């Protein structure tokens, strides 16, 4: 018998059902239904709620009417924080008019030494001020992780009330999760030393979220 069989046999014996009873329909049936647990009351306005929560987590949130003005808003933020103009961005976003605002955006995965990473987001969650990022061909996971500054751009219409709504959106639009689903809530932090919260542990030190009024496809 393999370790796998022995472990499964012990589980089945402990639970008092036959071996491989685990393959019963109850499991698949429940997963098929995937009912929700108690979800907190939905905030009436998603954008203000998202904004409030994201700001509590030390992110900066900007709203622009359309994707077109995004590069100018990002350029102003980078200038105000003395962060230069060199960035790495998701190939997804390479089509925005970066050069016109003086931002150099290299469309590729991030490497050591990249200082600013610009990403989109699959959706955002108002309840906790969270962004959901999916890894993929044009959305490399490193861009939101290695640079000291993370800029995320997404249409305000992609804000959903709760995490459960984000899962529904994922199922509807993608079927199964990609290799990495990252829920990102503010810049990285640690409280390991004397339980004192310090921003910028191994991930970004600061985070800018730009919400656009119109969808990207509308431009």
């Amino acid at each position, binding site marked *: 018998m393999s370790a796998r069989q022995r472990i499964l046999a012990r589980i089945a014996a402990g639970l008092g059902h036959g071996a491989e*009873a*685990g393959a019963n329909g109850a499991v698949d049936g429940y997963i098929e239904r995937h009912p929700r647990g108690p979800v907190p009351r939905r905030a009436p306005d998603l954008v203000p709620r998202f904004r409030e929560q994201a700001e509590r987590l030390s992110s900066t949130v900007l709203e622009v009417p359309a994707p077109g003005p995004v590069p100018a808003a990002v350029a102003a933020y980078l200038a105000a924080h003395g962060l230069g103009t060199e960035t790495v961005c998701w190939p997804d976003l390479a089509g925005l008019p970066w050069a016109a605002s003086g931002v150099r955006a290299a469309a590729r995965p991030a490497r050591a030494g990249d200082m600013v990473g610009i990403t989109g987001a699959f959706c955002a969650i108002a309840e906790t001020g969270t962004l959901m990022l999916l890894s993929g061909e044009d959305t490399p996971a490193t861009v939101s992780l290695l640079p000291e500054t993370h800029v995320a751009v997404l249409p305000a219409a992609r804000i959903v009330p709760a995490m459960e709504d984000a899962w529904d959106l994922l199922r509807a639009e993608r079927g199964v999760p990609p290799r990495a689903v990252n829920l990102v809530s503010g810049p990285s932090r640690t409280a390991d030393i004397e339980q004192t919260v310090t921003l910028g542990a191994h991930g970004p030190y600061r985070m800018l979220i730009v919400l656009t009024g119109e969808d990207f496809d509308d431009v």
Partner: protein
Amino acid sequence: MECSAGEFKHRAAQKLGDVKLQAALRRLQDKFVDGRAAALAELDGFDSLADAAAAVRERALADLDGYLLRFEREAIARGAHVHWAETGADANRIVVEIAAAHGVRTAAKSKSMVSEECGLNHALEQAGIRVTETDLGEYILQLAQEPPSHIVAPVVHKSKEEISELFHEKHHTPRKTDIAELCREAREVLRPAFLGADMGISGANFLVAETGSAVIVTNEGNGRLVTTLPRVHVVITGIEKVVPTLEDLATLLRLLPRSATGQAITNYVSLLTGAKGERDPDGPEQMHVILLDNGRSRLLGDELQSILRCIRCGACMNHCPVYQNVGGHAYGWVYPGPMGSVLTPAYQGLENALDLPHACTMCGACGAVCPVRIPLPDLLRRLRERQTERGLRPWRERLALRLWAWTAKRATLYAVGTRAAAWLLARAGGKDRLLHRLPGAAGWSAGRDMPAPPGRTFRDLYRERGRR
């Protein structure tokens, strides 16, 4: 990790006298206990959420084999390899084999209590693989060669001055006093370890059966780095960590960070599903998930089964008056506090952790704060009973209890005995009405006085009142 839970009494006594540790433990109360209360106050209802969370965990356990098989099927379909390990040694062997098969020489690890359980770092080093802990707390412990003292904040026992001194000594850098500067220094020292590692090793807070995903809940971002940059990613986790669906995950995620650190959500929650695809520009080429039993399956169908619901939030230890005073190292194994006092005897043997179920005042705080409703005080009481049933208590205690039981069953004798004892103890109390020494309980009375009884028994008083 070696279990030294048998030395609890001795260690606890030492820790009580450790001034620095006492200051560190007070901090934990201020930040985590108050933080949790504030974070939960913002929720509509802790009670309904905790009931739902407990139900999610119970559902997973009630069909654990079924959910594990579903997880395995989904994970394999997405390109992951799934391994089953009966013991910590088996898990270590599997990791070493994976490393050998892929020419791994260096590994970067994010925090994993299960890997501490196995003593994985030691096994890897024996196999010639250099391991770097990358969670800030775990990194500090690796430098200091100490075990963690808390499951969420592993280095809670150290002050910033001690950490500053340690960094100065090991990194050969000027001493720093600012916490942010210490964090920056660790970040810079560790970056090359992430970038150069062949293998990333992580635990998993949850496994999702529906999607075959391993879920990692972190703040620092090191969990993301070790699961994104190295060629090979190995997840090592317990078989009990599976949850059925993404909705169930959402329910548990509302409670885990709030109960642990008072955060509504951690900075990062990552669902990792399979290895990188052909067109993915980044991510590991190989993903391996090791499902560890190590005593867990034996608890199914047992009176202790509910401890397997545990989501490792640490709230029970943060609120425990014993943990608050002795810290995590006194407990002698990976898991301290109330959950550890159940898990250590359950996994390491009742006889190897005799003091732990007694390191409890029965105040009930742990059971009240547990987000998955584990009746910790009941489980501790049950372990005490098992010690008695198996004759594991010291002969003096057994003899004393037997004598008491014999007397208590003889009403007249009991009445005479208690009256005599009350009279004697009242005299022994002297002018200050305090007993400074108790025969046979020197350890107890060394640090405190016992108020002397007033000299009359309950029966006397009851009879007198009845007459009135």
